[in-house]
């Protein structure tokens, strides 16, 4: 569950925090495209390192590293399966290692890019920016809520586990199937109380006139400023630079 900390917004005062989510979204889209486009591990490493200056400026180092550390388990998983797959298909251990490394770095780069975005973007700003790019408010709000309730859900899962342990449930007992079954008493209350809460939130919102008028106004309106122009400029330039490494120099 620790990997989630790396995506949970915390209030901050850095320049990055104040950049419009739409500008940051450009960074996310362009650099995510690069992680898919590049194959060479060194190029992927460059894509990964693009998020480091942002991490440094916004001072989210400790949380960002939590998201990376939390994903190590998946990375090991990805590496091993990739390795086995390639060796099985081509018989080349060298190719398999290189491809495993590429896949792993690609995954870390993706985690890093999204982690940087979510760590420095408040859910409210994100929703507002979605509305301002004409995504219907209902969808924007749904997304916002889903994000916001992740920490609530993980806290609640902990309480439920405690409650069932108090009734003599031993989660770490038995063979694999038994252990999976042990999660039923945790998952069912978690799902049901989520539904209950969703209903409550919906009722509470409707009681406060949610949906009363077609066009809502906003308390704050996001505006692109000079710092956004600068951020977009740097982003696009480094994107083009990285892209030319493959297109011009022919590195895959």
């Amino acid at each position, binding site marked *: 569950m620790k990997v989630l900390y790396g995506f949970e917004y915390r209030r901050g005062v850095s320049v990055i925090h104040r950049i419009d989510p739409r500008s940051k979204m450009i960074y996310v889209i362009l650099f995510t495209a690069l992680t898919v486009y590049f194959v060479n591990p060194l190029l992927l490493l460059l894509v990964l390192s693009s998020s480091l200056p942002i991490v440094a400026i916004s001072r989210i180092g400790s949380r960002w590293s939590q998201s990376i550390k939390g994903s190590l388990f998946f990375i090991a998983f990805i590496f091993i399966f990739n390795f086995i797959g390639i060796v099985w298909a081509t018989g080349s251990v060298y190719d398999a290692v290189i491809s495993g490394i590429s896949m792993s770095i690609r995954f870390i780069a993706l985690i890093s890019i999204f982690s940087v975005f979510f760590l420095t973007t408040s859910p409210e700003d994100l929703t507002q920016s979605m509305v301002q790019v004409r995504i219907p408010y209902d969808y924007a709000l749904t997304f916002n809520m889903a994000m916001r309730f992740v920490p609530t859900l993980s806290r*609640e899962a902990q*309480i*439920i586990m*405690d*409650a*069932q*342990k*108090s*009734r*003599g*449930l*031993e989660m770490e007992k038995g063979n694999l199937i038994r252990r999976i079954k042990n999660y*039923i*008493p*945790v998952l*069912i*209350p978690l799902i*049901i*109380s989520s539904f*209950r809460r969703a209903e409550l939130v919906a009722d509470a919102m409707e009681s406060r006139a949610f949906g009363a008028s077609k066009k809502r106004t906003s308390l704050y309106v996001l505006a692109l400023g000079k710092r956004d122009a600068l951020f977009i400029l740097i982003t696009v330039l480094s994107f083009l630079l990285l892209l030319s490494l493959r297109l011009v120099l022919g590195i895959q």
Partner: protein
Amino acid sequence: MILFEDVSYSYSPGRYALEHVNLDIGGAELVAILGENGAGKTTLVKHINGLLKPQSGRVTVSGADTKNSTVAALARKVGLVFQNPDHQLFAETVEKELAFALVNFAMPPDEVSRRVDWAMKEFELTQYRDRPPFMLSGGERKRLALASVLCYDPQILILDEPTTGQDSRQKIRLASLLKRLNGEGKTVLVVTHDMEFVADFIPKVVMLSKGRVIAEGSAEEILTNRELLMGASLLPPQLAELSWDLALQRPTIDLEQVVSAASKLVGGSQR
């Protein structure tokens, strides 16, 4: 029975949820644990069944250090009923919900069904035997959660906010059940904000504030101590307030005493 020796615990560095707590709760006691929100009440009770282990100090339950046993082993002795029943109800039927803990403790089938029947009768749930717990009303779910712990007959029973959402009839039923269990020699701890419930039914009080035990004693003595209650952001029971308003020499939470004092004051005959 339950012994806290200089216990400290913190969830995040620098902020103690419990700070140097010393507490000794003997055999057959009926105790209320009071304190403002965030005083450390839940953290305290989680130490008794081993969900939390002290970061410093020692917690022993009937002589055994909780550090050396699992929650499952302690659960046999210590029944902890959580505040929100929706955090524990999961089975397809009320009957299976009640059997959950019993089966976990590997009790023989005939004993399981005997205890399930007892619990359904005791908590007026018999007519719901085959219903899914989620279909029950809030108050019924609360009773079911309590029943699902009580049915395995733990020596120590801890209830977190058992009176929320219960009408007065159910509160009185609960109180008499707690009294009876206590009379049978069980230790009963009630974590609550319900001051009237404590004043009416619970003889002993432990008061927490900001992670420390700030008072311990009879309910009569603590619930009539205005400074103490104010300090812990707790509302005094109505009888205590009435005693203060009547300027009684010895403020009390006993209805009879307040009535007799009041009637003396108005010059009427005693009841």
